[in-house]
């Protein structure tokens, strides 16, 4: 029961962060109204969790509640809205997120003992155990024999991202082609609407984090619709890990928009039951996403694509 309350609270915190992402993407200003319906559609959830997320933002003085009018933005980007969004992560139950983030940022090693984590975060042993349980549920850590825990591979280097795309190139088109692919049209429509909204933002205003969130939702949705249970399971776990640990994506605005257009085209083909076309479009989309910058380049020297051995 306590676990379930904590998870629900965590989901609402995550949703509150998503709400701030939408506010930033739309360039909203202090005093602007946040209609529940609009944000429920933008975040792809019902109005009840949106109310809970708004409530958290009200507690943090990011939103203000006006009787019979609803929620209004209290602070804008110039007043530190981005930082306020980050601070949400400091709220209760964010230990798992902090551990994960520290591992992805190479602050802690890939094998950790409970006592080392207790010392680093200055929390109780039980808190650390709970955090590790949350992470193990997502397949991020596994318990080793004894008292140590091992982190699974993460999306913390360009090479890891490249390997992920190679893996997805093999599985994602097959997830579409496997017999029994069934798409939730309503959910697809909501996703399309949010992608279109992102495309409608001013050039240079799509952030990498905002894009990554929608990108993982789109690819997870494709996985959910697959008729192959193993492809579905493997891809859902993979995208959860991507969402939790992928960092350092810096993609030019043109490619972000091109990528969103590709998502929309894939959904259009799937709506028309053109599965082979959609699978081919997925291959094209992933191949374009797999382009890597040279790892080292300088005048008079052939660009190096792989990490030089040290």
């Amino acid at each position, binding site marked *: 029961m306590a676990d379930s309350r904590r998870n629900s609270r965590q989901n609402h915190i995550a949703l509150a962060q998503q709400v701030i992402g939408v506010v930033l993407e739309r360039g909203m200003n202090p005093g602007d109204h946040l209609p529940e319906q609009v944000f429920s559609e933008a975040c792809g959830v019902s109005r009840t969790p949106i109310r809970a997320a708004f409530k958290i933002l009200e507690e943090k003085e990011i939103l203000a509640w006006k009787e019979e009018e609803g929620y209004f933005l209290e602070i804008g980007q110039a007043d530190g809205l981005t930082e306020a969004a980050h601070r949400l992560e400091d709220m209760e139950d964010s230990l798992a997120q902090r551990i994960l983030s520290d591992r992805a*940022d190479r602050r802690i*090693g890939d094998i950790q003992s409970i006592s080392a984590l207790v010392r680093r975060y200055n929390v109780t042993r039980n808190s650390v155990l709970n955090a590790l349980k949350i992470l193990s549920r997502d397949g991020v850590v596994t318990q080793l024999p004894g008292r140590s825990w091992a982190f699974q591979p993460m999306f913390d280097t360009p090479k890891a991202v490249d390997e992920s795309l190679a893996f997805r190139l093999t599985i994602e088109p097959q997830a579409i082609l496997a017999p029994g692919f069934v798409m939730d049209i309503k959910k697809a429509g909501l996703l399309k609407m949010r992608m279109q909204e992102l495309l409608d933002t001013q050039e240079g205003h799509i952030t990498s984090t905002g894009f990554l969130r929608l990108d993982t939702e789109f690819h997870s949705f494709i996985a959910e619709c697959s008729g192959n249970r193993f492809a579905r399971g493997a891809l859902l776990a993979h995208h959860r890990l991507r969402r939790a640990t992928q960092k350092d994506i810096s993609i030019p*605005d*043109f*490619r972000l928009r091109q990528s969103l257009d590709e998502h929309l085209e894939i959904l259009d083909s799937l709506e028309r039951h053109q599965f082979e076309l959609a699978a081919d479009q997925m291959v094209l989309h992933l191949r374009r996403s797999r*382009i890597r910058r040279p790892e080292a380049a300088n*005048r008079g020297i052939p*660009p190096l694509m792989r990490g030089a051995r040290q």
Partner: protein
Amino acid sequence: MSHPRVIALFPEASFGAALNCVGIAQQLRHMGAIPVFLCHPGFTGMFAEYGFKEYHLPAPSQVQAQKNEDYWQAFINTHLPHFNLDAEEQLPTYVAPTWEAIVDTAIDAEAGVESLLDQIRPDAILLDNVIMFPAIVRSGYPWIRIVSCAETEIPDPNVPPYLSGLAPEDDAAVTRFEQTYLNATESAHRRYNAFRKSRGLRPLAPGNFLENSDRLNLLLAPSAVRYSRARPLPRERFVFLEGCVREESRFDPPQLPADDGPLIYMSFGSLGAIDTDLIGKMIDTFATLPARFMVNVGGFLEAYQHVPDNVYLGSWFPQPSVVEQSALFIHHGGNNSFCEALFHGVPSLVIPYCWDGHDNAQRAQATGTGRRLDRTTWSPDTLREAILALLNDTPMAARLQRISREMQAEPGARRAAEAVMAAIDVSH
């Protein structure tokens, strides 16, 4: 109605030139032109991500690709110690072999460049390099030179020698450096002139590997750091750019466990990132400072463990957006980096290791837009002192704000595109 102008941009295979050209190409596109890129192997897809069509020079064979990797390993082993030498000592050890390699690149690329220009049939070619590819002149298409290195690349009695890191008034050292430079590059230059002759081009003077364009030359040299030339460059053919900053996606600084203090960005370019020992030691010092550090470690992320709580490592950053949000930029003196710092009014702490980094380090110090720190003799104390001094230098901050306002009033990328379009339309 005239057809849209097709402009072929040909940057050298380095990030500085490539991204400088992206900035100009973005503005050319806004003006209705069709910018396309001649693309070195290894840069495939990089320009496409910004929405530009790429024409690829032939890719190396698998055997050659393996050789390239071996070459890099040899390069690291050979040249890492040379980066600890001063600019003059680097002439025989690093600069001379680099010029030999540049000449090899030009010879190897010649047939590919000729073939691609036949295919593209551009209205103009923008060459951002340090060497001429004869196929460009032979093609007969109008060509424009972009000097994206420091202004020192175009000599003048009042401008210190290219790559010297000297001040113009240091007469004795200037004379000695010039002679040593000619001696060091003599072999590569002789070979290059022979190649030019075989392709029907006139020879160039000693030490010179690239002629100025008769039509237009663009210099990435903001007025705040520009030299007063004894022989001013003709304004109708030479346009100085106030930086050349590309449009880039927005960077949201990640939350750090220790998330207080000003934001400091450090990048030594992809070549500088190979010195993981140096960067690792600097990071140890960063851990002792009340600031947040974004550190570009290029392809070497896996070389770092136990990253301090106020430091974030990345293999790539949308640099213009990060610099814009930074209170200090620690860099290697690459001209693009230096100009981006000036454009956004951010002080530079320049730790040069080669090429025109030496020139920009000297210039940052001389113009009061930053400081130079020696990469071999720095200590944690001197690094800490330099960072804190730059963060607290109010007169420098005011000066940089003024420079930034002036540069942003005339953005170099747009000025470059306007000059290019005007130059094409002039019948020649």
